[in-house]
């Protein structure tokens, strides 16, 4: 079998990086639970979602090796997330203005 260097090799992260990321994820989980008790009004859910987004970003970037994938892959993920975001925004462009009697 032809061995092609670009097939992998750039994917090796050390054990240490993963453990650091894991610690960060656990810490963020702690934070999100801790702040859930505090009432920020409308910002409460926003805080929870921002923390979840940061956690997902870490998982995508490090655990899922997006850091070392080519630009194409990152663009792909962007397209998928954009599609979901647009669906949310357009749907709420309708729902937030519905007046029900």
């Amino acid at each position, binding site marked *: 079998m032809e061995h092609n260097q*670009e097939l992998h090799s750039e994917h090796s992260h050390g054990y240490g990086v993963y453990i650091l990321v894991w610690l960060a*994820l656990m810490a963020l989980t702690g934070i999100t639970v801790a702040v859930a008790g505090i009432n920020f009004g409308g910002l409460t859910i926003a805080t929870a*979602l921002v923390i*979840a987004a940061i956690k997902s970003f870490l998982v995508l970037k490090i*655990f899922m090796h997006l850091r070392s994938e080519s630009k194409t892959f990152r663009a792909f*993920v962007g397209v998928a997330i954009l599609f979901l975001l647009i669906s949310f925004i357009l749907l709420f462009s309708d729902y937030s203005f519905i007046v029900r009697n």
Partner: protein
Amino acid sequence: MSSQEQAVAHVHRDDVGARMGMWLFLFTELILFGGMFILYSVYRYKFPADFHIAAKELNTIVGTLNTAILLTSSLTMALSITAIQRKQKALSIFFQFITIVLALGFMINKYFEWSAKFHHGIYPGSETLLSKPSGEIVFFGLYYVMTGLHGLHVIIGIVLISVMMRFTSKEIVNNDSYVKLESTGLYWHLVDIIWIFLFPLFYLIT
């Protein structure tokens, strides 16, 4: 970029292509759950008070514990790939095994959580639930469907990782060719990401 891609076109094995296919599949999973998150957001917008009351029925401690379990299993999954890259076959199998154990732990927790709800008479179509306001019915409908479908994905993940353990021990997955293990890992991390969003949206409504 394109010249690189074309160089690979003549090699029968294309790991980058395999990973690309896996990512595209993960998008479909992401959007499958995305559809349910859309439902969730609309109903939470419509019934903020009911959601608040209904969420009190959920056990935050069990939810947090399960989050920690799943995050840790994601770590061991990632470590198993590094191990195979460093030709540490036994260590890789060990990490995969731990991943499965953690996943089973998650499911056992889930089982007790669901049974407790059933015990209190909260399940779709139950009299207790139907006597509650619409918003709470919808909340528990979403809860069962979304965590249920997520649980199904965890079970599929357990099966996949078990197959990978077998592959690794038979050296079908090895230091030179481990894209199958990588793809399983990608799938497992996506299951984790879904839970990262499910957790605050169901267990942490104040």
